[in-house]
């Protein structure tokens, strides 16, 4: 499985560099994109493999944040059109919200390695 990821990664890295400017991930996986639109995380729950980079993009003209409930990550304020990416390496469930609009909630589930 690891070998397969490595092989895929080699194929994908070139494309990623062109495709997602904000992503700094060297993840073997494809970036996952979550748009923030109309005061909601458009994919409120996502499940990803460890090492995956999630790219959040704010499409609203009100600022939003992507802030972990447990404090493990915080995008800071994202203006309209801003993106912020975070690479999730450790398996677990990460609940996050927008500090400016706490009714906006989302979850990232990072699966066990190789599963």
């Amino acid at each position, binding site marked *: 499985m690891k070998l397969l990821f490595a092989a895929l990664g080699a194929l994908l890295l070139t494309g990623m560099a062109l495709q997602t400017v904000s992503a700094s991930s060297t993840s073997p996986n494809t970036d996952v994109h979550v748009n923030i639109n109309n*005061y909601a995380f458009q994919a409120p729950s996502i499940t990803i493999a460890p090492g995956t980079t999630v790219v959040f993009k704010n499409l609203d003209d*009100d600022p939003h944040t992507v802030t972990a409930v447990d404090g493990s990550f915080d995008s*800071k*304020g994202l*203006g309209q059109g801003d993106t912020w990416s975070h690479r999730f390496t450790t398996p677990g469930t990460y609940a996050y919200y927008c500090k*400016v609009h706490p009714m906006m909630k989302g979850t990232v589930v990072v699966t066990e390695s190789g599963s």
Partner: protein
Amino acid sequence: MNIDRGKFLECMAWCGTGVLYTLAGPGVVGRALADASPLASVGSTFVQISDTHVGFHGDANADVLATFQQAIDKINALPERPEFVMHTGDLSHLSKPEQFDTVQQMLGTIKTGAVYTVPGEHDVIDDRGALYFKMFGRGGAKPWYSFDASGVHALALTNVLDITGGGFLGRDQLEWARADLAKQRSSTPIVVFAHIPLYAVYPEWGWTTDDYLELLAMLRRFDSVTVLNGHIHQVLSKVDGKVSFFTADSTAFPQPKPGSAPKPGPLKVPAGKLGEYLGIRTVNLRPVSGQIAVADESLAQ
């Protein structure tokens, strides 16, 4: 947005025991001022502005600096120089240094004795307000403070640092407020400022402060309490015993009436109508009676 704002704006009424409230619509306050009504040049005056959102670029207002400037021009043209001006938060849109710089410079051009501010959630986004408090804070190490001016004792509270639903004051601030208020006579008019409404305007949109009831209980013994908030970009009011609550217009853009849209947020109104949805508030303390007159005036007037 098809609302009964026109009808609403005609309201002029005594609210509670100590507040004369004129909700100004097109013509209403202009006429009142021209007639030298109770609102004009009696006693001392202060002004509330709110939600300038410097740094906002969106369909709802292409030039928030221009409308902020209009608000300043209105204040500077008042017949009586206000003793102080309070900005009830969301000075900036994104807590950026250049946004705060612009706000600070513009506030400095207001002809008034003092400018006070309380932070909105947009002012404390990245650093729990470290930069905001460095530039605008008046409470020393504390993010809240009180002061005496215009014959009132004013509390300037911060309810945007730990929002998990609505605003939140927190134990430390509530205990500070309790001690601060304990020093005041019941006859002293109390004015309470905070960004997010200190009553349950519309909890579904977070338009409330989760622990406001504890603060309200402390305010009950006073003869006149006026609570002035921002955040929701529209004038709404409520009277609860001797406590009167008023939310203020923004100088940047309106928001939907509670529950009238799927979500809150910047509301685009027809071109040429924006000024009618933005405004400033003049608060006048009338001598002898101690009554407080609250007048909202739109930028279109």
